[in-house]
């Protein structure tokens, strides 16, 4: 992606009123948003649903992006975080997602070559462990370990103090590690 800050702002402003520019903006960021969602939800269809929600929100709220945000991607990730958390807020839905994850992973492993079995098993454990955390902990885990963001970047993205994010990250990683260990020792159940 090759825009300077000013050009990025100008481009985004045009995207508010020009469908062509909006389409380009969408295509530039679709993969980023989908990647984030699929790493939060571990399910393609849920990730696509939430990605759709995110871009409809972006389309309707783009004019509120005031150009002071240094990183448009951060703004997008914040919207995506809210959308994913909304999606998971209903505890029943969260339980459903976990069930679906387990089923999908088993189905996947029937088709994937043997050398990937171990990774799929790890993925299943990770999915169950992450999805059993509070949404805010899931968020910092995903941003830190899948989006490779620094603590200050996560703080900027979420609009929180770095010290708050540090504390969330510390608790999140501790809990996640415990859950992963428990799951590994008990053959997969959290």
């Amino acid at each position, binding site marked *: 992606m090759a825009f300077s800050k000013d050009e990025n702002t100008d481009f985004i402003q045009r995207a508010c009123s020009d469908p062509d520019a909006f389409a380009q903006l969408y295509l530039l960021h679709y993969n980023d948003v989908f990647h984030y969602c699929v790493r939060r939800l571990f399910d393609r269809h849920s990730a696509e649903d939430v990605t759709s929600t995110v871009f409809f929100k972006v*389309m309707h709220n783009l004019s509120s992006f005031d150009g002071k945000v240094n990183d448009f991607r951060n703004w997008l990730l914040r919207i995506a975080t809210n959308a994913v958390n909304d999606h998971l807020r209903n505890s029943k839905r969260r339980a459903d997602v976990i069930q679906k994850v387990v089923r999908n992973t088993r189905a996947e492993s029937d088709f994937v070559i043997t050398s990937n079995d171990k990774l799929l098993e790890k993925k299943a454990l990770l999915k169950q462990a992450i999805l059993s955390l509070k949404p805010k902990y899931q968020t910092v885990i995903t941003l830190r370990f899948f989006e490779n963001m620094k603590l200050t970047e996560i703080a900027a993205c979420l609009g929180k103090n770095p010290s708050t994010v540090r504390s969330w990250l510390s608790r999140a990683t501790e809990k996640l590690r415990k859950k992963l260990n428990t799951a590994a020792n008990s053959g997969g159940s959290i």
Partner: protein
Amino acid sequence: MNDNEKYIEEFVNDIPFDAPNEKHRDELKNQLLNTFPKHRLQPTAHTVNVWRKIMKSKISKLAAAALIVLAAFLALNFFDKTSGIVWAEVVKRLEDIKTGVYKITTDIKGFPGTPEGYTTHITQDVTLSYEQSVVRIDSAMQVPGGTRKTRTHILFEERRLVTIMPDPKKYIEVTISDEQMKKMDEEKGDPVTLLKAMLEHDYTELGRKKINGVMSWGIEVSDPKLGAKMGSFISGGMFDETVVQLWVDEKNRLPIRIDATGSSKDGQASMETVYDNFQWDIVIEPALLKPEIPDDYELIAQGKWETGNEGEEIIEVLRLFVEYADGKYPASLKTMTVAKAIAPALRKKFPRGSREPSKELLARFMKVDRVGMMYTTLEKDGKDPAYYGDKVSAESPEAVLFRWKTDDDTYRVVFGDLSTQDVSAEKLVELENLQR
């Protein structure tokens, strides 16, 4: 990073995830555009309509060529084996390729001028616009003592190559003949061209593999002549042995990863290269594709690349060995071998802090980079070249050092002292038999 973070970082490493689905992306785009808030619509006079410009582009013929080759490749390797492919969608997808960016990461052992055993790490961020017919390469090379950064633009329409070195504030400019430019345009070293080149050789199917969670299909070519078709490190007769694997995303039908290894026969130099982080059809800011040279940058060398003169240019490279390396020629005309052989002599001649070589001399040194490519061009053009630098030095004025065919029955022979003579094929056999 504390223990918990390290544990999780290691745990999540390599875990595969679903890749984006193009169908969903396109459907969502249509839904969004259909419901775009009408009250916000304004005249779009100032909008840069990239896609319209792309459609008018002269360079679209390149994409069309890629289309034919890649389509043939997919037909051979995928279509019959996967029922899920809709052929028309593949064709449409390929027609639309106009820009690309990707990263090349290379580790070279035995890089000229580095200590023995040192691995030179090079990263290159490549920006490619078929629309504007420009390739930009931002390189960072880690050498003992620091990182050297350069920015190269190959401007196909202007027939010009510019390499800018920001740290010493210097730049190099090369003009390229029409014929050479045509060749480069056909063989510019991008992944699509690489695929084309690979398909012209015997290739092995590697089957399916997940790469970063994306199901991919691969092919492999281990023909050293592949190098003659390519730009970058796997190109231009750089190494004696080359193996290239190319992996294509099963869903979007575009390259996702390329692995290349190369090595010299004598084992002195080797290379491992990975092309990844591919993004296709992204918007590229036009200013990025223009070489901006600040006023205080110094032009240190100017060169000219042309075709049809490869044999004579190779003699010019060999002359550097007479002048700076006591007439001891490189063992082969592979670029890495030649560069490794001349580097110590030049370092001795121009030690750190000494006066810089003249522009003319630098222009001659620049030919070393292309010597392997020049030799393979002679091979490709059926000019039957042969080189005996492993046996012949400047002290053998009557021995054949190098030769190539100048017409149907005439060879130009270059002797150990770099004198030349045009001889018949029969006479050549006689001369070469004398030194066996």
